[in-house]
């Protein structure tokens, strides 16, 4: 199975949201990283066929996704970043409604609904109205509906939004268990969501695909460019303006900062450390630091 993005561009008036993105995706988990406004949601909507690109096309095994119509949607699972529910529907009813929409046979739909509600930890509230659910519960229900039809292409836009740390760990396990023979694209601006489960990381910035590769390949690009430095508390503001600081904490009354950049920081007490994906993210998005 091959999902191709062929020179996808999207323009809203004078604003370019996506600028000629080309990608070829095979089975595996793809983590789409980017700051808010990078174009992640736009790209995902285009892949799902609910937003037309200004130029370019999405192809599955060589066929345009829009031309495929029902056949494409049949193998698609989608969790949008922001979506509502029918408050008067019970969780089970909502799942059965989505199952009908996805064309699942009635008995199979019931069985699958029970199974998935169990997996996402909602089986005890299956007969409760969705309107009474917390944000995290709604998000889990959203994940469950996305995989109802056992999709071959699963698009998850900010799937961990609203989930607590335990739920996020559970979610990562869940995605890993679904991943076999599927193309999963998972967009997030939370690096840890994809660091452990993504086979490939795609970094999107201002509508352009900056880079892609495995976590190892990408972190190698900033190897030797990440330092841990010890500074005085009073120097923090000065260094914050000068360097891209990934992290900071106080230890034994000393301020320890983690800096990423092409230039070695002009700090006496420093050492090169092994890079992480978060360092890479900051390397590319340091001007969006405030939004992290």
């Amino acid at each position: 199975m091959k999902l191709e993005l062929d020179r996808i561009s999207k323009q809203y008036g004078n604003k370019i949201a996506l600028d000629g993105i080309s990608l070829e995706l095979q089975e595996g988990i793809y983590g789409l990283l980017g700051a808010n406004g990078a174009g992640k949601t736009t790209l995902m909507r285009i892949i799902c066929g609910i937003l037309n690109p200004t130029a370019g096309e999405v192809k599955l095994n060589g066929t345009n996704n829009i031309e495929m119509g029902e056949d494409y949607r049949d193998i698609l699972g989608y969790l949008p970043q922001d979506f509502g529910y029918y408050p008067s529907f019970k969780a089970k009813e909502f799942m059965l409604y989505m199952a009908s929409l996805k064309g699942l046979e009635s008995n199979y739909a019931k069985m699958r609904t029970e199974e998935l509600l169990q997996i996402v930890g909602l089986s005890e509230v299956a007969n409760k109205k969705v309107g009474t659910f917390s944000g995290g519960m709604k998000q889990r229900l959203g994940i469950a509906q996305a995989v109802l039809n056992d999709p071959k292409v699963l698009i998850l836009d900010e799937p961990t939004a609203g989930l607590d740390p335990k739920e996020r760990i559970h979610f990562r396990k869940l995605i890993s268990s679904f991943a076999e023979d599927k193309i999963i694209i998972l967009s997030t601006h939370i690096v840890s969501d994809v660091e452990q489960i993504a086979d490939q990381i795609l970094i999107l910035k201002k509508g352009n695909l900056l880079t892609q590769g495995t976590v190892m390949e990408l972190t190698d690009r900033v190897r030797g460019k990440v330092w841990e430095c010890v500074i005085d508390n009073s120097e923090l503001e000065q260094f914050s303006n000068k360097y891209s600081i990934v992290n900071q904490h106080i230890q034994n009354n000393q301020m320890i900062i983690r800096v990423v950049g092409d230039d070695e920081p002009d700090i006496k007490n420093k050492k090169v450390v092994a890079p992480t994906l978060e360092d890479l993210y900051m390397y590319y998005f340091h001007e969006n630091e405030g939004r992290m």
Partner: protein
Amino acid sequence: MKELLGLELKKIYSSKLTFFVMLASLLITSFLYASPPLSEIAVDKNGKQYMGRQALELEKQYANEMAGPLTDEKATESIREFQKLFKNPDNVEISSDGEIALKEDANLKYVQPYYSYYKLINEAYILPSTVDMTFKTMQKLDIDNGANYYNARSIKISKMLNQEYEDWNFSPAEKNFWLGKTEKIQLPYEYGYCWGWDMFLKCGELLMVVILAICICIAPVFAGEYQTHMDSLILTAKYGKSKVIIAKILAAFLFGSIAFFIHAILALALPLAIAGTDGAGLPIQIINVICPYKLTMMSACVVLIITAYMVLLGMISLTLLLSTKLGTTFSTLIVDILIIFVPVFLSISETNGIWNHILLLLPYNALSTGIRDDYFAYFSYPLGNMVMDVMQVRVLLYIILAVILLPFTVKIFKRHQVL
């Protein structure tokens, strides 16, 4: 599909909006259709006033005294009786305009109880679209050779069709059409009590409340999906651009139909329960002597309900289109309300017939049967040699509207972009 339809239907009926709007419209409908019979006032021959059921009983008693076939002979006899009243000096006085008029007590005793009966007779002798509330025409009518009641009716119809109008003159095809219809009406008319049916026919426009209420409930069918961002999920699902749209449309029509008939039955049942079901088989000509439609009181009510239902179907279709196109429930409702209520403030033109012919088809006006008015009862739409009456055109127009708008709704939702 059945499951989808059921769940789409549930989305409509289980919303709080639907609950409160339906509750309100049922209460309003009950009030609007129960209050006229309950507040009906009648005065007996001694001047004693009655209200509500008692008033209706009294009216029924007086109407039953005159009930039966209104033959030429009976009309002549009734006119003679009426004229005799003026020959008794105890009954008359000279009115302010110098004419002989009945004294109040004579009027109360001999005319008022049988007002609708005398009106039915008198109407045949007056010019079309004119009124004679004191029955002066009948008072002065020469009946030495009989009243020739049905001949007078035919003359009135002929005048109606042949006189010159500033807004619209009847074409030969229209004249033939109307003459053909009037010839089919069974003579003599059967007179009797039919207050409940008559009241329902008078209040056709009130059904607009029901239509508006239903439009409010279905306005979110598509717009609600956009507003809750469920459109992303629906449009990426296998049947999100096919079956679900059909299910939504069917659910809207099904909900609208059930809600409408519950309201319509309530609206008809209330006056009939209070005023009685008498008069179902009486011809509608007893409320307008030259009315060209061969209908009984009951069948006229059915025609009104069918017409209102067709208007509803057209409005549902329009609401669904607006819901997909405008994207918010609020803007959908604003346009709906404008379409429904703006015609209330538009008046008939004395010179522009085309305007009048359009005006009578607009939703609010379409709920008025027009059968009790000479001018509106003869509203026809010629297309070459083919002529259709206003009732047929309304039904046809709203069916076409209901059908023709749906493909646009489907297309717009299918092509909806999630921005």
